[in-house]
């Protein structure tokens, strides 16, 4: 509970309002800039080897002229029952007890890519090569985020470095983490405020309130993965 003794577990949850999301992809760039996600160039991307941790899925619906588009930002859903975790032979991806997140330990990863096959959200990317940031482009690399080398998996972390910093800051000031204080890069950048991030255990948090919505759903919830990303379905007014 908020204002409690501070020993409660935090449970970080993201709410994405698909009715607000306009598909602009600012989150994609923000994520890449925060998390040192490598760019791979045209040929590699044409081959399906983009490193995007976050992608905005776009579907065309209908036929001319009643064409519609739907967007759905899709990233690691930080499943409570994550299918990627048990299949890793070396515990490179596992559940962190502190943050209740699905974490990827780059140093431990040996690159079996089993987790990626088992992820129903196709949220994981693999470092096919060593990617470069030609100097001085590497100056903007975030010192809080490991730069990954070839042969390992990576994925959205809910910007765990920000969560940790925010929690440390709050602890140092002897207070609870305030709602909205910790934001992953995507939520922070989102121009339409479609992405909201917060602590589920805080009953007054914005995510908790938004999740009450009738529009709320979890993607592929029937698989029992218990994702920590809650989508709010988009509405359409039919003319």
């Amino acid at each position, binding site marked *: 509970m908020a204002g409690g003794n501070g020993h409660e577990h935090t449970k970080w949850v993201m709410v994405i309002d698909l009715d607000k999301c306009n598909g602009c992809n600012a989150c994609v760039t923000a994520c890449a800039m925060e998390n040192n996600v490598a760019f791979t160039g045209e040929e590699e991307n044409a081959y399906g080897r983009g490193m995007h941790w976050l992608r905005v899925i776009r579907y065309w619906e209908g036929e001319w002229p009643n064409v519609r588009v739907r967007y759905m930002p899709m990233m690691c859903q930080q*499943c*409570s*029952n*994550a*299918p*990627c*975790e*048990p299949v*890793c032979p070396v*515990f490179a*991806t*596992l*559940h962190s*007890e502190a943050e209740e997140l699905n974490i990827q330990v780059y140093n431990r990863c040996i690159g079996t890519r089993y987790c990626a096959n088992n992820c129903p959200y196709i949220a994981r990317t693999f470092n096919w090569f060593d990617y470069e940031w030609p100097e001085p482009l590497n100056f903007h690399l975030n010192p809080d985020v490991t730069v990954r080398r070839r042969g390992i998996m990576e994925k959205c972390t809910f910007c765990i470095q920000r969560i940790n910093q925010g929690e440390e800051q709050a602890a140092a000031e002897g207070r609870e983490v305030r709602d909205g204080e910790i934001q992953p890069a995507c939520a922070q950048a989102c121009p339409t405020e479609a992405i909201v991030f917060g602590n589920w255990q805080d009953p007054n948090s914005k995510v908790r309130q938004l999740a009450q919505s009738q529009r709320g759903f979890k993607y592929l919830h029937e698989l029992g993965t*218990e994702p920590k990303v809650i989508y709010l379905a988009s509405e359409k007014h039919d003319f």
Partner: protein
Amino acid sequence: MYGGYQGRYEPKTFVALYDDLDPATQALDVLREMGIEDRFIQVQSGVPWRPDLLGRPARPSAVSKYALIGAFLGFLSAIALYYGTPLLYPLYVGGQPLLSVPPGFIVIFELTMLGMLIASFLGVFFESLLPPVVGKRVYHPEVSDGAIAIFFQVPGHLAERVKQALSQTGAIEIEPAEGTFL
């Protein structure tokens, strides 16, 4: 048994070669008739002959015991690995319990089998005392060509008599042999 005797009573080792099972069993009968106990006789052959076909005492092989012990050790190591190591560094994955039963069967099965197989394999060599580390053992290379070699130990003074009796049974060759039986 022969410890007190000197010189001509000293035991001597011979080998008699046969090319077929029947004369060989006959020869074994002869040896027994002449008072040579089974433990002073060793048969070597290029194919395995069942003891009852040879007329030799049948003893069960201890390899099965090795197998059982090995299986048990494999089982224990599986338990240790599957139910022990997660406790050393508890890491939770996929919402699964730290210690669960069904996947344990897989680990237990594999390691039990592995223990059993390795132990049986090693059992063969421990039980047969192979490879020979010290001493020379009796052997005749004709065994590789399908001969049945009967090695026997007789007190020196009886050697000639036994050789004579065996030559009646159709031995291809009877000659002195060197080395221990083991």
